Structure formats: C-alpha cells, structure tokens
C-alpha cells in the first residue's frame, strides 16, 4: 500500500519507494539467526572431529608406553581435560572440553567428549 507525503512544493504525493529496504530490514535478523546457527553447528562438528582425532592419537601414544608430550597437550582446544584409564591390556583416553555457543552475554556452554582406546604394547627392557 503506498504511503503519502509532501514534495518540495508542499504538494501531496504518493510514495512507493523504500518498501524493499524496510521489508529486507524486517526479515534480515531471521536469516542472520539461521546462518549463525549453521556456522555454530559447523564449529561444533570441527571441534568434535579434532577431539576424536586427538583422543585416538593420545591413546596410541600411551599405548606405546610414552608420556603425553607438551606439544600434544598444546594442540588440544583450550581447557580440555585429559583422562587416561588403563584397563588390563587396553588403555582408554577420554577428552572433555566445553565450547561456548551463542551471544557473548547469552552464552551456553556445550560439553564435548571424545573417547578412544588402544592396546598397550609390551615393553621390552634392555639389559646391559
């Protein structure tokens, strides 16, 4: 529906421009919200994949009888907890981290967990 206004000569005119901008401004937040959710999902997936890969690598390192090096710990997401559970011939490594999603002041913390296991290799001690 066109609106009315005054032109330079104070004559009543009908205005039809500006509707597209107004409509775009109304719908834009909804689209930005959906795009933000999509990007957040992709970020969570990337972090989860990184955790799974790191858990498998950590289990392999411990299974060989080596301690976890600092380079491994530094490669994990900030604040990741490492739990190593030996169970007979198998060692299980559990990595837990929390990822904040949402707006800076309205954030929600999501806990991501990855678990991997490896068989402990026999250690042959060298004599002499």
């Amino acid at each position, binding site marked *: 529906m066109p609106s009315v206004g005054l032109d330079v000569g104070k004559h009543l005119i009908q205005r039809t421009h500006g509707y597209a901008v107004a409509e775009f401004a109304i*719908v834009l937040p909804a689209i930005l919200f*959906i795009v933000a959710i999509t990007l957040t*999902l992709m970020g969570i997936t990337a972090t989860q*994949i990184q955790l799974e890969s790191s*858990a498998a690598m950590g289990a392999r390192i411990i*299974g060989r009888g080596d301690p976890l090096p600092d380079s491994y710990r530094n490669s994990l997401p900030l604040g990741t907890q490492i739990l190593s559970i030996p169970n007979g011939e198998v060692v299980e490594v559990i990595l837990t981290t929390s990822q904040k999603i949402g707006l800076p002041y309205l954030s929600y913390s999501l806990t991501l967990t990855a678990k991997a296991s490896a*068989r402990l*290799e026999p250690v042959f001690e060298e004599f002499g």
Partner: protein
Amino acid sequence: MQKTTPQKANDSGQVTILLLVLALVLLSALPIVGSIGQLLVTQQRLNAAADASALAGALELEFNQPQACDVARNFQVNFPSSTMSCEASNSRIRLVLTLPITNAPMKYLFPNLVATASAGIAQPAPEHGID
C-alpha cells in the same frame, strides 16, 4: 487519440516473500548440516577404531599370527553393529570396517561408512645369519 497509461503494479511485499523463501530454504538445510556433521564425526571414530584394531592385531603377528584377526575383532567394541573383514599374513594385518548408516536422510546417500586400516611388523630376521 486517447493515451492509455500503464497501470502501476503494487510491488510491496515481494522482497518479504523472497526472503521468507530464502529463510525456509536455509532452515531446511539445518538438519542436513547436522546430519553431515554427525556423519563426519562417525567416520572419524570408525577410522580411529579401525587403526586401533589393526594395531592390536599386529601385536599378535610375530608369535600368534593365526589369532591376529580374532584379537583385532575382539578389540573392536565401539561399533557393535559394524562388520569387519580381516586378512593377516606373517608380517601384515589388513582390515576393513563397515558400518551401516541408520539415520533416515543420510542412509540413502551413504548406506555404509567404510574404514580401512593396515599395520605390520618389521620383517623377521632370517634364521641363519651371515656366514
């Protein structure tokens, strides 16, 4: 001669409809993004499980080679619905882990996830050394 002026069409609301359609398309893409993410994570887990199983089986190659595949199968407990095919020789074990996808949207595109892994030991030294 009478001049006819074209009637002006009412364009208001068209952008809203276009953007709402775009929003609906993006909204319907969300479950697909989630399913693809879940698929990628499952593939990563399957790869790790296949690697760990192959390494567990490889520890048996030197002294207990006939049991290497059984050890690899017993080690693989994270994916009970998966199937494993395994071949073991004197110095190498190779296995293929296949996991059927059960999620409705993705199982039509990717019916199975497959992970292949192999591990081995160094070639055993010959029994008779250099004379």
